[in-house]
């Protein structure tokens, strides 16, 4: 399935893009992450949470095809 993936904050310094659409073959979030770690070597060293359809999810959550966002630590306020 095709999934839109968004990157924020310091993660964009690794990806050099803020958004991309990838053809994903896996079933779970962690499978998508493995694909991203292969594409962006240093991503694995960074602290981030994953949101699917704008809700934080665990790595064992099933991919639904909704938008995925990789969110580094929050710094609001």
């Amino acid at each position, binding site marked *: 399935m095709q999934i839109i993936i968004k990157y*924020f904050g*310091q993660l964009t310094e690794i990806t050099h893009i803020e958004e991309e659409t990838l053809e994903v073959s896996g079933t779970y979030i962690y499978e998508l992450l493995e694909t991203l770690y292969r594409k962006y070597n240093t991503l694995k060293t960074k602290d981030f949470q994953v949101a699917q359809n704008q809700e934080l999810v665990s790595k064992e959550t099933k991919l639904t095809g909704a938008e995925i*966002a990789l969110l580094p*630590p*929050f*710094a*609001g*306020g």
Partner: protein
Amino acid sequence: MTNKKTKNVFQSGAITSEFIGNSIYKHQTKTSIGAHNIFLGQVRADEIDGKTVSAIEYTAYEDMANQKFHDIRESAFAKFDLTCMHIYHSLGTVKAGEICLFVFVSSPRRKVVFEALEYIVEAIKADVPVFGKEIFEDESHQWKVNS
């Protein structure tokens, strides 16, 4: 006074004292209110390894952030007897000494606004996907993390 529609909380750049003053002024017509409480987040000129922060550049996952602000608003109205509540957060560059967050709660009675304001500010810090790039005077940077 809860608003079911998701509002846009974000403003471009610093939140000015004129804007804050005007917000207070607008509440003069709401005469059931007996107490306001206001939190203002200000960009601190932190010194890190001999370099001083001159500004923070804010970005956000805006759709999710506005949804989270909405959830926080709904939950605060459910928990506390508030007459109204306003939240504004900056995006883009805010210089040291300028205001980046303005939270404004109002109630008939004072005790409620003290509790509600702390609840709201802590929830914003923990739950809302906003990111801050701390820019130093020599134009290098590091990424801010809420503690």
